[in-house]
């Protein structure tokens, strides 16, 4: 297991390195510099600006510097939020986004898996059809439609919940964004669980378990659930990616000060370093998560552990 972990880690580092390299050189190859929008700057000021940000050096020197500062956890200065470094901006926004995303992901798993199991146990009944129709809707309708619609109904008309805004630790402010964020992965997890559960329930050892008189609860918990969860485990990385993507719009709509909103603002302002830093952070997160999921996978399905 330890070896398995380190092989995966050794594979991940070059991937991340390639991503950093490609994005860095794409950024430098871009037509126009980051100071083009600056209004009528005198050549002297411009030269000073460029030397302050290191742009007067050859590209490979800049690349070396950037890599070195990355190792120290320094993503460089933001071009638009003049008094902040990218690291500071990420440090401010990340806990908020993490909290929002972690709650949404937990909800998706805690509701999606039981819902899928329930639908599988009621296979081909109205309950099954209803659950799966709702799941299609959950997958198809994007969060930037769900969130404002819910906000309009529950916030503007019924006054039950705040439409937007953010107070640390306030569940009322979290409710709508979390619901909008968790619906697509929740629906997908329910569908995956139902599909694999149906397959597992048809297998011989489940029939044996029922035949020796085990109650349904025991059969599901002790025998069926673990193998049925392997597809869900392999969906975890895409699920987190979907929540990360969703949090871009959800944070923008609900006015939540997370990194998603910084990224959107950074993209609109063409804040190079900020967006570059975000892409690296998001990629590193997903790659790291991918390794964890592989470990989980090996635990759920012992066959994976065997070297083929």
């Amino acid at each position, binding site marked *: 297991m330890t070896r398995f972990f380190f092989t995966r880690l050794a594979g991940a580092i070059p*991937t991340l390195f390639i*991503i950093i390299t490609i*994005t860095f050189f*794409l*950024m430098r*190859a*871009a*037509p126009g510099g980051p100071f083009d929008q600056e209004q009528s700057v005198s050549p002297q000021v411009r030269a000073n600006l460029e030397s302050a940000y290191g742009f007067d050096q050859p590209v490979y020197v800049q690349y070396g510097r950037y890599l070195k500062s990355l190792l120290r956890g320094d993503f460089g200065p933001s071009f638009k939020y003049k008094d902040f470094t990218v690291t500071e901006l990420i440090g401010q926004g990340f806990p908020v986004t993490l909290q929002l995303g972690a709650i949404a992901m937990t909800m998706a798993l805690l509701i999606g898996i039981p819902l899928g199991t329930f639908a599988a146990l009621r296979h081909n009944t109205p309950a099954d059809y209803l659950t799966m*129709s709702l799941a*299609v*809707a959950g*997958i*198809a*309708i*994007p969060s*930037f*439609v769900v969130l*404002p*619609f819910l*906000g*309009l109904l529950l916030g*503007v008309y019924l006054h039950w919940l705040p439409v937007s805004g953010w107070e640390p630790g306030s569940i009322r402010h979290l409710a709508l964004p979390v619901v909008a964020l968790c619906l697509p992965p929740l629906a997908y997890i329910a569908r995956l669980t139902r599909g694999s559960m149906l397959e597992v329930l048809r297998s011989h050892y489940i029939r044996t378990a029922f035949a020796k008189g085990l109650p349904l609860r025991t059969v599901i918990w002790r025998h069926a659930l673990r193998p049925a969860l392997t597809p869900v485990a392999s969906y975890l*990385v*895409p699920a987190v*990616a979907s929540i*990360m*993507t969703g949090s*871009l*719009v959800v944070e*923008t*709509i609900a006015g939540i000060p997370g990194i998603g909103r910084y*990224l*959107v603002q*950074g*993209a*609109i302002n*063409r*804040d*190079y370093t900020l*967006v*570059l830093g*975000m*892409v690296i952070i*998001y*990629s590193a997160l*997903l*790659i790291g998560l*991918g390794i964890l999921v592989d470990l989980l996978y090996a635990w759920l399905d012992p066959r994976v552990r065997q070297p083929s």
Partner: protein
Amino acid sequence: MNAYAQDAARRLRSNPAAVAAGFVMAAIVLLTLFGPLFNPNDAQTLDWLHLAARPALTNAHWFGTDRLGRDLFARTLAGTRVSIAVGLVASLISIAVGVTYGAVSGYVGGRTDHFMMRLIEILSGLPLIFFVIFLTVIFGRSQSLLFISIGAVGWLTMARIVRGQALSIRRQDYIAAAIVSGAGTGRIIAKHVIPNLLGPVIVYATLTIPQIILFESFLSFLGLGIQEPGASLGTLISEGVGEMEAAPWMLLVPGGFLAALLLCLNIFGDGMRDALDVKEG
């Protein structure tokens, strides 16, 4: 039409949800094409007498107007048209890339296949939408970049499925026959492998289109896609969110159109998958 296709069509027709979704989809498409003929207003004219007017039959603004007095019915139809057009074109790009990539990888096999699949694995583990956002930052927001970057993101699943099929096609006798009669690899892929992939390709094409429409409206919603004065459903929804307390119809109309369109495309795609009995790769 061969027996396989007839069978599939029959199975699709006996799926009421897919049939209903097909009808709604057709209705939306017909409405976007012919709706403007019945509408006295066009999408750009500013009606100063009706600013942010409620939907009403009497003042000829059936879905109301926005803050500038532009007719929402006309704007929503135009936006839907843009969304569908982007969806179709970008889907075509991603299908072409995915099918070629998958067919080459699966048919050539060996080390090439291993390398090509490893690349897909890496790409699909990445948050591609962030790269698209990154590209819009670097190259500015242009329409052609939008098509290319969206198309470039959608091909991964298609490539994987096509590869799986190509692997099994490779072992068929008619491929051996083609090889013995001296056909080159490129010719075999183009003439024998790709035509036999049609079933799964059609299914995944119908499932790719809603993903791509969603992706485009997502970018437009964030202000990174279609730019003013053009509008897609994403842009309209984003405007609607800003005005939702004063003029909720500005949110509900385009939001409802996008939700209905995506829902129907998904249901129809699922129906196609069941009817053609394609396994996910």
